[in-house]
């Protein structure tokens, strides 16, 4: 399903980045940096809540708005019961919706918020995401101090939180359309290879978006997928060509390959997590759109809907991807 928007604009964005990300190629572009996985808090979870609260506060400071001025917020993270978002928003006076589509949550939340703003039910909304390498490792894999060897296709969850303020008041950057993806399960069971899990749903969403908006790959200055990783990116290119006849050229990239410094760190196939795509977009892509360097950008957030329980029960991993198109006006 494709939705077109006429009255939704990007007012401001905020980024908070943690260890490893702050040594990557985007290190000078974040609003705030956390140098360790605790940042003075007692647990990793509390650290992630603090990150998310900081990202929201920075967004409010940048827009010079008070909490009461915000109509509502949609937030996502990786923890069971959306714990991080729930706790972070328990300290705020903003009406709140929690969503979960794993790493596709960024586009999911922007899509939902844009629909409500387009409907004139709200004037503005915050969409926030957070992820933390250690809390994700603990929930989905092994204890954080346990050092089992991992295959090269493993992605390394980014530590960071992001926020975006959407508004019905006209700004330079417009949210023009969004495509809701389908849950696709191609039978991949390898929990260390999320790129292969998510590629088919990303391909479906890309094809659907191009078809329904009557556009071609060349109409976009940049097509950015979420967190397929360095190997997933190659699979995605070939999959799109074989399955849909879509040829991806230089204007395609994957945000997982842009977030870390591959030369100096042992981070396997790249970044992942709900904050991976927004950290790249809000710190790098949005400023470049403001400079008119990029005019039309398609974001495809890719989510592996993995559960350790079903993986142990030998069920394969489904995935979903949603797309958002941003344009400079």
């Amino acid at each position, binding site marked *: 399903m494709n939705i077109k928007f006429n009255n939704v604009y990007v007012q401001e964005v905020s980024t908070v980045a943690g260890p490893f990300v702050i040594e990557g190629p985007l290190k000078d572009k974040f609003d705030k940096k956390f140098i360790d996985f605790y940042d003075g808090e*007692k*647990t990793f979870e509390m650290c992630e809540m603090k990150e998310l609260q900081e990202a929201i506060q920075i967004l409010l400071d940048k827009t010079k708005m008070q909490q009461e001025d915000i109509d509502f917020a949609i937030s996502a993270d990786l923890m069971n019961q959306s714990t991080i978002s729930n706790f972070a928003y328990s300290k705020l006076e903003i009406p709140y919706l929690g969503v979960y589509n794993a790493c596709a949550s960024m586009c999911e939340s922007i899509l939902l918020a844009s629909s409500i703003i387009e409907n004139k039910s709200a004037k503005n909304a915050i969409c926030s995401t957070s992820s933390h390498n250690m809390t994700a490792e*603990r929930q989905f894999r*092994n*204890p*954080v*101090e*346990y*050092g*089992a*060897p*991992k*295959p*090269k*296709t493993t992605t390394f969850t980014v530590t960071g939180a992001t926020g975006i303020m959407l508004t019905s008041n006209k700004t330079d950057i417009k949210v023009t359309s969004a495509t809701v993806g389908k849950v696709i399960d*191609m*039978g*991949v069971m390898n929990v260390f*290879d999320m790129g*292969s899990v998510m*590629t*088919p749903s990303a391909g479906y969403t890309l094809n659907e978006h191009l078809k329904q908006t009557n556009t071609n790959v060349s109409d976009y200055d940049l097509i950015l997928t979420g967190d397929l990783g360095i*190997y997933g990116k*190659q*699979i995605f290119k*070939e*999959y799109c060509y*074989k*399955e849909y006849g879509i040829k991806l050229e230089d204007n395609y990239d994957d945000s997982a390959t842009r977030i870390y410094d591959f030369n100096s760190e042992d981070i396997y196939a790249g970044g992942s997590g709900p904050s991976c795509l927004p950290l790249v977009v809000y710190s790098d892509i949005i400023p470049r759109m403001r400079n008119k360097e990029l005019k039309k950008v398609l974001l495809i957030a890719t989510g592996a809907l993995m559960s350790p329980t079903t993986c142990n029960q030998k069920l394969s991993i489904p995935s979903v991807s949603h797309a958002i198109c941003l344009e400079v006006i």
Partner: protein
Amino acid sequence: MEKKEYQKLTEKYSPKENKLKNAIIAFLIGGLVGIIGQALVDLYMNVGQISQSEATSLMMVTLIFLSCLFTALGFFDNWVSKAGAGLFIPISGFAHATTSSALEYKREGLVMGIGSNIFKLSGSVILYGVIAAYVFGIIRFVFFGG
């Protein structure tokens, strides 16, 4: 695209793990752990004037202690991920798995946290170790007279 066709596509781009290299590293590191163990046994026998079986027990306690300490100090996971089976198959791996689980659940309390979860990773080793000991013990008793 069919699932099988897709599987072929993903395999085409998946990096190959260097099994020979991993095996050699595991062999060398595992061997090194063995040498350290033997050196400790010799040391305890000569210095403490104790029997070999007592010295072996002491050596195991030492290796377990060091693995736990290094895990708690936060660098042993990097060693294990590089050394692979060379470190996680010997007793150091069992100690590492147990300590890392204990550290993980420390904040959730002594009973519901550490107590309930300390054997999360190493519980299988204990369970199937005990079962295997019974099975082989019975076989030995029945067929070889104990």
